[in-house]
């Protein structure tokens, strides 16, 4: 069985092609999904890619959250379908309330574009099982609104339940609370993070490493063993 992994293209998505390519390189069947689709074309999992969907005109991810494809994805994600939100995709997931908290402008007000070291804090999610617990990985980070925030009670809950999946190392690039780079829902099927694993899957581009491949091989193992 080949896992079918969908990648949504919203108007303003930038990294959908890279995400499709990363899915393919990992050995799954990439399926392009359109923001107006209400049907998910029998995909087993979905990636919400980076970019500036609908121009991020209201808030990052706020308008995409109400697109036809998201209505179906929200319903399916609640039923257990794995969803990975990368950068703008993470913002869409918080706006959809599939993940708690919200994303704000970087605290220094500059766009960030750099290779970022992360620690994998939870390798039991659908998207991180191919990493070792505590593994340090290098993944490109590029965003304007990367400051993850939530009220203290939510943060304490995330920490207590091991739902902080990635943390920034060697300095916090955007002022996010507790150096949080990515989180998961309670079930572990929905994961969001600001850095871009799909840009770190081939030696020739991005960081020059392949530390991002694990996201896509993890999901294949999860789906094939399901």
């Amino acid at each position: 069985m080949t896992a079918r992994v969908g990648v949504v293209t919203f108007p303003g998505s930038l990294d959908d092609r890279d995400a499709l390519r990363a899915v393919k390189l990992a050995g799954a069947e990439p399926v392009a999904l359109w923001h107006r689709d209400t049907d998910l074309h029998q995909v087993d999992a979905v990636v919400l890619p980076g970019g500036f969907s609908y121009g991020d005109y209201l808030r990052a991810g706020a308008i995409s959250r109400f697109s036809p494809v998201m209505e179906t994805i929200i319903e399916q994600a609640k039923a257990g379908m794995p969803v990975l939100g990368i950068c703008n995709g993470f913002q869409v997931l918080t706006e959809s309330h599939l993940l708690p908290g919200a994303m704000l402008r970087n605290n220094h007000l500059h766009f960030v574009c750099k290779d970022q070291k992360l620690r994998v804090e939870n390798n039991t999610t659908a998207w991180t099982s191919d990493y070792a617990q505590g593994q340090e990985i290098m993944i490109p980070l590029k965003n304007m609104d990367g400051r993850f925030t939530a009220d203290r009670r939510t943060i304490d809950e995330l920490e207590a339940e091991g739902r902080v999946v990635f943390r920034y190392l060697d300095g916090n690039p955007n002022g996010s609370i507790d150096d949080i780079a990515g989180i998961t829902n309670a079930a572990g099927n929905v994961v969001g993070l600001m850095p871009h694993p799909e840009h770190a899957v081939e030696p020739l581009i991005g960081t020059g490493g392949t530390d991002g491949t694990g996201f896509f091989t993890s999901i294949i193992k999860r789906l094939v063993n399901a």
Partner: protein
Amino acid sequence: MARVVVDVMLKPEILDPQGQAVQRALPRLGFEGIADVRQGKRFELEVEGPVDEAALARIHQAAETFLANTVIEDFVVRVEEGQ
């Protein structure tokens, strides 16, 4: 047509670096005595038909689900008089 205004502001406990940047620029431009600046959004909605309780309830719902993200923002809905 009646105008309804929705003001959206970051919650007080949320850091507002944009407001801070504006606040820091003020004294440089000779505007002294401003202790703090918070930057927000203002939506002006031109409403067709009467702005009755039902219409305001709909706008309140739009503000709560869409115009504001209540995880980080507060909002106020008010009818602009004198149109």
